[in-house]
């Protein structure tokens, strides 16, 4: 039976999607504190202000992350949620679980907490929502000893690394994202479990430029699989697509009749750098101008595949809009070897170079992307010992924010513009 009158919260159940309110009510039959969540949320809706206090000192011994303290400012009114701490669990790479493991963690959470979970949080962790301070150490003991499971990162720690499905299920993947994610998770246990930085730092790994974990938009350090040589072309399969033998986009849009496949309209004209053309029945690609947008490969996966010389592009500095607006990561290293045979030492070298600089130069609560914006990309690239290339731009073909020094320009600032214009038309 509902404990509180919640007309505004109930309204949310009338929408077209499954509602978390319905889930909460169902869970409340087992965990009565969930009625208090609904009641307190109704109060917040009415007062137009949160009734959660900000942060706290809770945690488990030896760790400085993984538990986020949450306290109510109306504990007498809603005693079931006076404390309602969140626990972040380090999800397995690519989020492959056995049902047995999921049942175990759900049983444990019903014993030690509210039973409510968030599958998954924004960073990728499996999030357990709501428990009291006295349950934290017993929960941590059960979790680590019985389930062989660890906490994830929070606060000014390295956050739980996250990756796409990678080579486990995806033919596009140019790097083994799961191996890289798991290796770095183990390598940086200290940074995940204890604060280390001026602010949070996130790794995300995508196997190809499709970037299914949105690493370029969400992580301070985005590793995106790519290739250096030419896109592999099977000309007979290209003909197959043109003749309608194969469904484009691997049949993803087959639910409706879009008409006959038109390679000019659906592939070549949409190439952002116009680096493709049909010569007779043959598809030709000027690979030197390919920006790895993946569109042609996504549309005709039987005919086109990433090249064989594979590695990763490193982009640095994405963040959500807390302080200074949302920011995409900036391409920093165009191509990096990603080699499990040497324990990914090239990737680790880049990470630690960024950290050493950011720990020193970054301000309190400043993400690495904000530090780069503040000091300028050229300064950051010098620190990274990266040669500047035309791709180091804010947006392709506009707004370059790499500026040349006088010593880097032929003739310096005093060169004759008249002479220059004789060779370069305006």
């Amino acid at each position, binding site marked *: 039976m509902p404990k509180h009158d919640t007309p505004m919260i109930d309204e949310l159940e009338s929408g077209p999607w499954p509602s978390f309110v319905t889930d909460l009510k169902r869970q409340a039959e087992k965990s009565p504190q969930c009625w208090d969540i609904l009641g307190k949320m109704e109060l917040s809706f009415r007062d137009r202000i949160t009734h959660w206090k900000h942060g706290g000192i809770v945690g488990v011994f030896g760790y*400085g992350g993984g538990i986020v303290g949450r*306290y109510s400012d109306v504990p007498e009114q809603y005693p079931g949620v006076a404390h309602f701490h969140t626990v972040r669990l380090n999800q397995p790479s690519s989020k492959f679980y056995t049902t047995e493991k999921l049942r175990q963690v759900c049983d444990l959470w019903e014993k030690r907490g509210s039973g409510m979970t968030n599958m998954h949080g924004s960073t990728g962790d499996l999030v357990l929502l709501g428990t009291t301070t006295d349950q934290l150490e017993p929960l941590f003991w059960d979790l680590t000893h019985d389930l062989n499971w660890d906490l994830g990162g929070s*606060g*000014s720690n390295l956050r739980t690394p996250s990756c796409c499905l990678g080579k486990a299920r995806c033919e596009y993947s140019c790097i083994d994202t799961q191996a890289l994610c798991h290796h770095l998770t183990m390598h940086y246990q200290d940074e995940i479990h204890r604060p280390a930085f001026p602010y949070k730092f996130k790794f995300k790994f995508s196997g190809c430029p499709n970037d299914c974990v949105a690493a370029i938009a969400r992580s301070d350090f985005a590793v995106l699989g790519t290739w250096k040589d030419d896109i592999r072309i099977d000309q007979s399969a290209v003909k197959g697509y043109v003749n309608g033998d194969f469904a484009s986009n691997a049949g993803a849009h087959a639910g409706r009749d879009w008409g006959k496949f038109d390679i000019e309209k659906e592939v070549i004209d949409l190439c952002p750098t116009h680096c493709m053309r049909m010569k007779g029945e043959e598809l030709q690609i000027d690979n030197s101008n390919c920006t790895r947008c993946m569109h042609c490969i996504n549309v005709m996966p039987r005919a086109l595949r990433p090249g064989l010389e594979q590695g990763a592009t490193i982009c640095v500095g994405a963040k959500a809009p807390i302080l200074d607006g949302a920011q995409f990561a900036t391409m920093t290293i165009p191509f990096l070897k990603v080699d499990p045979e040497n324990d990914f030492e090239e990737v680790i070298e880049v990470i630690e170079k960024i950290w*050493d600089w950011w720990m020193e130069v970054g301000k309190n*609560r400043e993400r690495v992307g904000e530090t780069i914006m503040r000091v300028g990309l050229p300064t950051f690239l010098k620190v990274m010992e990266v040669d500047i290339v035309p791709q180091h731009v804010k947006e392709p073909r506009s707004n370059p924010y790499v500026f040349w020094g006088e010593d880097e320009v032929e003739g310096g600032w005093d060169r004759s513009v008249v002479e220059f214009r004789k060779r370069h038309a305006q």
Partner: protein
Amino acid sequence: MALSKEELKAAILEKATNAPKPQLYVKDFYACDPDSKPRAVKNAANELVKEGKMAFWSSGSTTMYAAKGRAKDEEK
């Protein structure tokens, strides 16, 4: 020359105990020894937490340090 680990820990604890602000960011401790690398300062501060002489305070998105008893305890 950088302070030894024990000297650095003593300097950090002294700052955490006497600073006007009860809760400090890890970067606030860098000034305890400008010759120590940020990583060494962070490790020393984290060790003090492990020894129970300091505590972490976290909002969930950022973490601060405080000498024992100085952190804002929402349970009290």
